[in-house]
């Protein structure tokens, strides 16, 4: 049952998200009938399932809320922005209820009550009173005469009259007298029709209601009479055989005859008054319209997905080894077969990866709501445009992207877009525009967040950075370097610290969050016109396009996304671990990895230097040789290497050996902080 609860909670979360989306688009066009249908349907589903799983507060709440939208679609209530606001607030409340079902604090309760009061104002809710069934007390045994004459068409409704008879007799003790008086001649007989009828004499403890219940589904399909005899009857074998015999001569016997037979044993017979007629209700409802959403997907546990990915990765690795061996043998037929296998494996891997990919639009949805609420709060008019929402990303990347992106969006609204007045003054439309675009570029996914706000004032940044001693007065910074100061911890140009974006804590956390998923962020801006944040992310974290290099006796992988350019450098230029060098007319620091890692120093004739970017500036990493490009399946190093953050993992090469994969950001951080230096110095000191 635990598992079912989980499913319900997940489902409810999705429903609420769907509801929110529908409400937001409804808000744009209050005449959209399809939207109302959609809203109503979601509320209805939520109402039903919440009741099933014991979420009574949710059930009660959606019950009332549903009335509004029922009223709207029946055109009895007119949709207004006020109602929309109320509904959105209600969705927030529902989210609270679903996420914290155990929180039945007074705050939650009064919130519910407050919202409900508001809701009821709109629906003039006639309290729907439902008839609570009153169960009569059981008494001693009673005797009933029951006539059950099903309509001809009863079988068409899937009813099996036998079951009804069985159930009746199960109530106590009784006898069934079937009548075949309605059966037509053979030529008129149709097998779909039912021609029998029954009389039942039943002695039972049950009351009339319970008997009626057995007929609950067939009330309209049969002629049913229930008659309770007032006298006690002992339905013994004598009576039964007498009833049977009489029935042979005349069927149906009819209540009078049966009464006669039964009451012979009892001289003080009195017929009870009236028959019990199962009641008929009759009201036509309108059929619900059909929805247009097709869902043909299945839920898969992410553990299973991980398992599958692991297995496929191993398949790829083993395949690589097989290839190597087959190449060595030179057997043509074997080569052909393995080539075929390669194709299949590659295709399989492609499919497996795409299974783990999720479209971005889910993330985009969250922002729609945020922007709406925030812009209202700040009294700014903002239009939010999304495109490329079907672009897919690995789920684990998507999960980690949401916070950083959220923060950037907040920042746009808070600092980027100006107030309506300010915009008018600068000749812009009062409505600000924020756009979020996602697209594929090579093996990356790019997400661009643009606004047409006030842009970034480079001067202000420089001033602030000077003030906070982040830079020196005479430093000549490129535009990029200036913008990157925004990401520096402890930086903020907002004159007041708003609690919406917080202090400069936000931007640097956002950047780190993006880097954690091996992504990069780049800012572009024009003062007065707007700003854009360009985030590029790898498609997946577990397969990396890398550059295979060797340092000392070991081979390493450098993720290609960090490789900008490669140079050759004669050994004499790299005498120190940490050497400023000029390449391509640009000055950069080059780190001698061989030295840093403490490998024996041989006088290398030529070093290969790989240029990469670190916090906006160029850095060079000198390795012994560059072997070539290599696609690797990333495997974790394990917790025992937790301190070795400069490696994001390791991979198995085609020849079976293990190559470590660099996390370039962390590696360069360690290099620049001089940590390797310290470790080496300690070692050298010992050796003296």
């Amino acid at each position, binding site marked *: 049952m635990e598992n*079912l609860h989980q*499913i*319900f909670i997940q*489902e*409810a979360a999705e429903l609420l998200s769907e509801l929110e989306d529908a409400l937001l688009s409804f808000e744009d066009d209050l005449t959209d009938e399809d939207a109302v249908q959609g809203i109503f*349907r979601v509320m*209805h*589903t939520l*109402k*039903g*399932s919440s*009741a*099933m*799983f014991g979420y009574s507060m949710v*059930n009660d709440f959606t*019950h009332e809320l549903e009335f509004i939208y029922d009223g709207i679609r029946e055109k009895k209530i007119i949709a207004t922005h006020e109602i929309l606001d109320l509904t959105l607030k209600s969705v927030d409340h529902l989210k609270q209820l679903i996420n914290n079902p155990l929180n039945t604090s007074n705050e939650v309760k009064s919130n519910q009550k407050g919202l409900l009061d508001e809701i009821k104002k709109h629906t003039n809710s006639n309290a*729907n009173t*439902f008839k609570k069934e009153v169960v009569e007390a059981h008494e001693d045994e009673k005797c009933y005469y029951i006539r059950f004459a099903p309509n001809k068409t009863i*079988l*068409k*409704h*899937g*009813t*099996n009259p036998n*079951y009804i008879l069985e*159930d009746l007799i199960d109530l106590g003790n009784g006898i069934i007298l079937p009548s075949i008086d309605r059966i037509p001649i053979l030529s008129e007989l149709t097998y*779909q029709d039912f021609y029998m009828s029954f009389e039942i004499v039943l002695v039972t403890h049950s009351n009339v209601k319970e008997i009626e219940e*057995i007929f*609950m*589904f067939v009330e*309209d*399909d049969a002629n049913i009479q229930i008659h309770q005899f007032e006298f006690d009857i002992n339905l013994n074998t004598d009576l039964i055989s007498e009833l049977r015999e009489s029935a042979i001569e005349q069927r149906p016997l009819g209540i009078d005859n049966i009464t006669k037979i039964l009451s012979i044993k009892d001289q003080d017979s009195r017929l009870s008054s009236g028959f019990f007629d199962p009641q008929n*209700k*009759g*009201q*036509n*409802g309108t*059929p*619900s*319209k*059909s*929805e*247009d*959403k*097709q*869902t*043909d997907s299945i*839920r898969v546990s992410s553990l299973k997905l991980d398992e599958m990915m692991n297995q496929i990765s191993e398949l790829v690795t083993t395949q690589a080894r097989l290839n190597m061996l087959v190449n060595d043998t030179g057997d043509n037929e074997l080569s052909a077969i393995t080539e075929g296998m390669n194709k299949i494996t590659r295709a399989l891997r492609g499919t497996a990866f795409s299974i783990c990919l999720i479209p971005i639009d889910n993330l985009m949805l969250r922002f729609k709501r945020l922007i709406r609420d925030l812009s209202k709060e700040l009294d700014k008019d903002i239009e939010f445009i999304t495109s490329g929402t079907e672009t897919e990303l690995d789920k684990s990347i998507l999960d980690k992207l949401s916070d950083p992106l959220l923060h950037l969006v907040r920042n746009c609204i808070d600092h980027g877009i100006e107030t309506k007045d300010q915009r008018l003054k600068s000749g812009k439309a009062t409505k600000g525009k924020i756009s979020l675009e996602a697209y594929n570029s090579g093996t990356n996914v790019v997400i661009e967040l643009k606004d047409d706000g006030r842009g970034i004032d480079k001067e202000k940044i420089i001033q602030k950075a000077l003030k906070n001693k982040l830079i020196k007065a005479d430093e000549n910074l490129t535009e990029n370097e200036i913008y990157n100061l925004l990401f520096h911890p402890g930086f903020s140009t907002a004159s007041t610290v708003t609690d919406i974006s917080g202090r400069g804590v936000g931007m640097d956390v956002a950047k780190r969050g993006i880097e954690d998923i091996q992504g990069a962020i780049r800012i572009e801006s024009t003062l007065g016109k707007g700003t854009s944040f360009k985030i590029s992310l790898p498609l997946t974290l577990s397969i990396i396009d890398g550059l295979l290099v060797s340092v000392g006796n070991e081979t390493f992988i450098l993720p290609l996304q960090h490789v900008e350019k490669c140079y050759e450098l004669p050994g004499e230029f790299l005498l120190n671990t940490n050497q400023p060098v000029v390449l391509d007319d640009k000055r950069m620091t080059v780190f001698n990895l061989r030295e840093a890692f403490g490998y024996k120093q041989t006088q290398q004739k030529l070093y290969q230097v790989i240029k990469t970017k670190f916090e906006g500036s160029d850095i060079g990493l000198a390795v012994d040789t560059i072997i070539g490009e290599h696609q690797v399946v990333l495997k974790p190093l394990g917790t025992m290497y937790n301190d070795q953050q400069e490696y994001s993992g390791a991979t198995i090469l085609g020849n079976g050996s293990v190559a470590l994969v660099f996390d370039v950001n962390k590696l360069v951080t360690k290099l620049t902080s001089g940590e390797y230096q310290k470790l080496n110095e300690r070692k050298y000191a010992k050796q003296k």
Partner: protein
Amino acid sequence: MKVLIADDSESIRELVGMTLESAGYEVKKAADGVEALNMLRAEKANQIITDLNLPNMDGITLVKKIRLDPSKAGIPILLLTTESQVDKKEEAKKAGATGWIVKPFAQEKLLNIVKRVVR
């Protein structure tokens, strides 16, 4: 004994499935009316339980369509309704439904009603 449950709420499908399976029924699940019909075409069911509100084809239309097919005559169809839709019962009956179950229902009740119409 095969039972087909059609409901757009996954949690309800799972709950009904679990309840019936533990009583020995084989349960097939459909998320909407179209899927339900497809499943019925492919495989016979001894009983059908469907929600009134389904995407793509509502419950009552589903019942009508099932009843149109002579090969499916006599299969009991139960509708899941909420208390406020009590008036829909009439319509459902006219369409050919066998009976109904009111939401929310206890698992015990579901089993009893199912047993009432199919054995």
